[in-house]
């Protein structure tokens, strides 16, 4: 099996879809249902890439993304945002958080808005892992 990819999404349907796409493309999928569990999995398994939903109960994707990008040990973990939230809204929330917290985090390199064709997702993963 290939590289390990963690899928963090509260929707089981999205998880099973992404997991299937990953398996079909010879990646090793890991899953987490929310931000809290996501962070645990990252620390425990050190995945090669994280596919992260934005809106989730218990530790949103926004929080987890910021946790990753402000932690010296974790900031290099590649992240693909994978969400139903428009990029514009996401960036707006980031900007508000930056002003509030006084720390700046880089914009996500790859931001995929659902719905995403399997090939699109695979292309994004390949690009990120290259």
């Amino acid at each position, binding site marked *: 099996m290939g590289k390990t990819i963690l899928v963090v999404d509260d929707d*089981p*349907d*999205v998880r*099973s*879809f992404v997991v*299937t*796409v990953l*398996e*079909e493309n010879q990646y090793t999928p890991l899953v987490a249902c929310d931000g*809290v569990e996501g962070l645990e999995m990252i620390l425990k398994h050190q995945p090669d890439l994280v596919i992260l939903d934005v*809106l989730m*109960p*218990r*530790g949103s994707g926004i929080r987890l993304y910021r946790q990753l990008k402000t932690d010296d040990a974790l900031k290099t973990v590649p992240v693909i945002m994978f969400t*139903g*939230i428009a990029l514009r809204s996401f960036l707006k929330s980031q900007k508000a958080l930056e002003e509030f917290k006084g720390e700046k985090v880089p914009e996500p390199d790859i931001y995929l808005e*659902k*719905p995403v064709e*399997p090939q699109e997702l695979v292309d994004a993963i390949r690009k990120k892992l290259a």
Partner: protein
Amino acid sequence: MSTNKILIVDDEQAIVRLLSMSLKSDGYDTCTAASGEEALDVFEKQSPDIVVTDIKMPGMDGLELLKRIKDLDPDKEVIIVTGHGDIDSTITALQYGASDFINKPVRDEALAIALERAQTKIRIREQLASYTQDLEEKVAEATVEIRRKSNFQRLLIHSSHDAIVAFDQDWQIVVYNPEAARIFEKRPRNVLNKMTIDELYPPQLAAFFRSEAKNKVHDRGEMPWKEMILETRNNKQIPVRYATSALHEKEEFMGIVNFFQDLTEIKRLEKELIQSERMAAIGQTVSGLAHYVKNILIGLKGGSYVVNVGFQNDNMEKIKTGWRTIQKNIERVANLTQDMLTYSKERTPEVELCSPNEIVTEVKDLVLDVAAANDIEITTRCDPDLGQMWLDPGTVHRALLNLVNNAMDACLQEEDPDRRFKVEIRTGKTDDGAAVFEIEDNGCGMDDQTRAKLFTPMFSSKGGKGTGLGLLVTKKLVEEHRGTIDIDTRLGYGSMFTITLPERPETGRDENDK
């Protein structure tokens, strides 16, 4: 009052002159006559106030003169001058209305006293006259004022937009204005003082007001406006607001007055407004819906991808997983369609005898799996005395399911890792017999902004996971059941929704039965 004029009558010229001079020196105005006939002549020309006449005169004597003068003007004072011992004449003079007597020979003091008495009488009479006239004027003024006021009140009742019907203590109709004539479709002249309450009102209503009047004998509190469907004797049904007041005078029952406001037009406008608001809401809904439908589409596409992979790899597990996703999203479409239909159509609650507590158990059973999967404890606390009630079980079921699902979502959105999430459903009864349902969670709660938008169409705090229709549909169902929905919430601590549903809401017009 000016000095009285005095006519002195005597056939003896010397006496006349003497008296006249004496009186003039006392400040009186005098005139004289030497006989009864002349006296009458002078009387008519000079109109003296007091006549002093000798009783014995040739021709017309003093008695005859007295009689004539009193005939002409009974207010004139006539003093008779008599000789000693002439009792018979004195009595006759009294009968004719003489005011006083003086004896001959006339002494100044006696005359002065008699004149003074006569003057006092005149003064009192004048005062009385002026007082009487005053009184008459005042009565006339008051009468005009009363007539004006009564006219004003009559006009007020006549032109009132409320129908006003009043009954006297025998339940006869004494006030019946044009608006009442319009509502009851009977002419005032056939009704006023001719009909009783039982001939105008349908039996139920008449009985109701009769009993209402009895209740009001001891309690003067005004009855608040109430609504009902008025069924007239012509079998028309008119939605009205009505109020009634028992009238009392010094604790005694005088009658009763009823006011009716025809709500037909208001009800129609209300209906139109609600309908158009709902249509506008549906319009706003379209963009929100597109978003939600897109999410369903994502689910369906993802699901079918997983199923395809399963087929390609002969992997039954994948096929099952993908199929579950597809089924779940079909379910979401079905629910959405039903919500939309429920929200856009007007619906009368289908009331039947049902057990609220049983419905609570059904709803609890439905959500138990999802709750367990998310570590949420569902508890119920049902009032065992609730029993069977006349409610629309569909409304109860739908409303409870929506609210319990919301409550569980609120638990999932709360980020406190140590909290043990709980949703409790409780039932009970209000004092006036309505069913009460409470759904309480200890989830994330709401801020004021979210709370304010709670019943706005397509407002959802659940991202793409909510349609924004759930609470709207719930509210609509509850209101169609003439119930209420209330929210008590605190951000970070949880929410409690309370639904109150009165029994048999579609039979409101039968409220008077009870």
